[in-house]
């Protein structure tokens, strides 16, 4: 099937996410205007206007009532997902790199970059107190990474909202207790920057994407590396299919080393691997620059990708995708 091409963003995509039902697709980019789209026809419902810099990250709660965004304009904003009204602005000292609502949507964490002498911080808020007291509400907990420690580049809530799992710029994986701020454990699965962490549907596993050209699937409970997928390029984003035993990897060279890519069709590929066998299943070309972010539709019947080229491509799988099986 021909993908839907959404060109509402004027600059490189940074993150895309479906809501729980999969009828909406949220996106943020370096152009400061997060957007929401109908996933079935690619129509843009609206934009969330207010940020003044690159928006690095976004998340919605499970009811799709609230959207949170984190930006390089040193703020985290909370929006009414339906009306696009900005409800809360939390000012920070440096860029907000990664954030997430807890599964029950009662809490929100975000992490900031370590820049200009400001440390990398992981802050946890009560969503209700944010809504009542606005941006001045004090966080439930602030975890400050000591100077010299690698900053957080990707993070998600742990199982049952009891912990926060963080990926760091040196390839380190950590787990923090958001109540006591204790570092529960850490591991060094990658040798370079964490670019993405995404859960499997049941959250028993998560996949990590790293600049070290690999993606890995972990057991959430034990942190054990279950599977490794190797490529020849930095992996910017990775996702686990909710339907089939597939994983999706996307990336590309650094924007710097990309040479001329003019032509009829973009060459940058999303790559499918078999979850269990770690073998490549196929590739989907199309983007004109590296792919920065991918997400499976919650039904597993399609996926979307957001690229350095400013495009979002919504793909629906055709019959052959569902029919293909490896012999074993």
């Amino acid at each position, binding site marked *: 099937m021909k993908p839907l091409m959404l060109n509402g963003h004027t600059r490189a995509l940074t993150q895309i996410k479906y809501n729980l039902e999969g009828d909406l697709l949220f996106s943020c980019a370096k152009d400061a205007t997060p957007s929401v789209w109908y996933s079935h026809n690619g129509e843009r419902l609206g934009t969330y206007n207010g940020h003044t810099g690159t928006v690095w990250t976004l998340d919605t709660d499970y009811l799709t009532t609230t959207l949170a965004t984190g930006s390089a304009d040193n703020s985290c904003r909370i929006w009414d997902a339906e009306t696009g009204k900005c409800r809360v602005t939390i000012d920070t000292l440096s860029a907000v790199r990664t954030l997430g609502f807890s599964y029950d949507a009662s809490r929100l964490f975000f992490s900031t970059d370590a820049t200009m002498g400001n440390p990398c911080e992981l802050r946890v808020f009560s969503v209700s107190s944010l809504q009542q007291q606005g941006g001045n509400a004090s966080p439930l907990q602030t975890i400050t990474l000591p100077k010299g420690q690698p900053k957080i580049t990707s993070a998600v809530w742990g199982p049952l909202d009891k912990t926060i799992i963080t990926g760091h710029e040196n390839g380190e994986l950590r787990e923090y207790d958001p109540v006591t701020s204790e570092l529960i454990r850490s591991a060094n699965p990658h040798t370079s920057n964490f670019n993405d962490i995404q859960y499997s549907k049941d959250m028993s596993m998560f996949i990590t994407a790293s600049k070290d050209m690999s993606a890995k699937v972990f057991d959430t409970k034990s942190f054990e590396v279950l599977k490794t997928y190797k490529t020849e390029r930095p992996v910017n984003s990775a996702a686990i299919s909710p339907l089939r035993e597939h994983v999706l990897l996307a990336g590309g060279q650094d924007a710097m080393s990309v040479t001329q890519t003019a*032509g009829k069709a973009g060459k940058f590929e999303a790559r499918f691997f078999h979850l269990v066998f770690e073998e490549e299943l196929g590739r989907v070309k199309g983007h004109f620059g590296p792919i920065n972010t991918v997400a499976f539709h919650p039904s597993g019947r399609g996926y979307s990708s957001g690229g350095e080229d400013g495009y979002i491509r919504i793909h629906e799988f055709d019959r052959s995708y569902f029919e293909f099986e490896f012999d074993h």
Partner: protein
Amino acid sequence: SMAVEGTAADFELNLTEADAPVLDERLDNCVIVQNVPKVSAERLDKLREVLLKVFSFVKVEQLELPQSDEGKTLGFAFVECAERAQAAMLVEKCNGYKLDKKHTFTVTLMSEFNDIVNTAEEWTAPEEKPYEEGDNLQDWLLNENAEDQLVVRHAKMTSIYWNKRESRRVAEERINWTQTYCVWSPKGTYLATLHKQGIALWGGKNWTRILRISHPGVKMINFSPNERYIVTMSDEFPDDAKDPKSIIVWDLKTGAKMRAFPSLQISPNEAGAAWPFYKWSHDDKYFARLTKDAIQIYETPSMGLLDKKAYAIPNIMAFSWSPSDNYISYWVPEEGSRPAKVVIMSVPDMQEMTSKALYSVKDCIMTWQQNGDHMCVKIDRYTKSKKQIFTNFELFHLREKLIPCDQLELKTKIHAFMWEPTGKKFAIIHGESPRIMTSFYELQENGVTLLQEFDKVAGNAIFWSPRGRFCVIAGLQIPGPMSMGGSLAFIDTERECSIMTQTEHSSCSALEWDPSGRYVMSVVSVFRTSIDTGYQVWSFNGRLLQRHMMEGCFEAHWRPRPPTLLSKTDIKKLKANMKEYNSQFEAQDKLSQTKASDELLEQRRKMQRSWEEYRDRVEREYAEMQEQ
């Protein structure tokens, strides 16, 4: 960095030789540049700036300009690149770079520079193995699975692989096997490697050295078609008319020097300046060279000039041997009222077999069909106003009485022409950019017939299968304005011509058919790009079979095969029995597939089992948690 504890004394006690730092580690990414201008300390920054600009196509990590005690630079530089492949590229592109009149760079890999410095007086070839009597030089032809070989030069490694359908297997692999490049002999018997001191020929089952030829500074080599002789060229010797050393013809069986020639001083644009200077006749009987107003034809094995004199042809521009007969075609331009002329003559009697007068000629290119059945002259002509150029083709039929000639005229720019090796078809890429297209023609009873014009097949090079019928139109990444991105169109010229596959191998700069016409190899070379170098193997109809990314891949070439020993009747008989063979191969393939896949399947099964166990455990734990 690591924290160091303990005192200096502890250190001394604990240190052993094995702990000593390894200096050589990064030598592979370093080059030494000689003949750099010597400047004083004040101008050091300026020089550094100039050099970095020259080297800007690679990522320079460090540029070191050693200075004397007075602060003057010493005339050489060390450059450290980010990657090995980039260092190789720096050598490739900047060795011989003319900075100004006085300074021409010599660029050498540090590792090789050390080799040179450490070289013993007497040259010893690497990994010498004694040649064993009975080591059959054609052993590779006995492969029962009909596999062919290919050589790949990547980084410092030269690898020879057996090409299987969807994978490869190493036949031989050596580090620093050659100092510059390597070449297969025309029938595939030898692999020639080039070294500072000369060339070496390798072959047989164990890749032993068959022959060593000493010709210091050898730059170019050219085998005779039947592998009886080899010509080597070096530009290290100022020519002495009495004892020339620039171009040498050698006997390949004995290694004996047969004759030497001086390097005629020819400017690069002049006729006959392109290598090979000496062109061989198809049967190794003659070799000939173009000189001013003449062709010099030498006879083997006497190595004497035919009829003891050069064959005078005033104003001759170019000549070409037939690939099947001792015929030479040549052309001379217009002179005064005399028209330009294309001539085909026979050797050694020098009889003109046919000639054709041509008018308003700007340039001619002669292309023989591989069987020698046809010869095409592509003629660029001026229109009457002399303002525009149009092209026509004169197509000679060598096998017919009086050698008749067909004409084809095209009004557009021609980018490539190529005969089907075994048939009567030819392909032309033509048109003005960006509307480049490809046309296929055939010589039929009633003249030249257009089979098909593909207006969406653009390219800059034509590659016919050695067996004919199939053809790849490629848009290679090449120097110059015609460079393209690596598009590949696989075309079947049977009946009306059809495109089987249109695809691409991004940035590929070379393409080669295997000798059987079953496979096509496309190569991305580090000479053109540093990203994703390596090669891919396609089926003749454009199905991607193998993808090999190899760091710093320079080039890859299929090993040629001698002509088949099968007669036409043999092949006829064989074709009649194909049913039997088909079932035999079918069974064989199934078996080997099963064998190969059994291993893979077993591994997958194992992975699946342990995965299922894992998932069961997770689900059990989840269920237990819910109960609580």
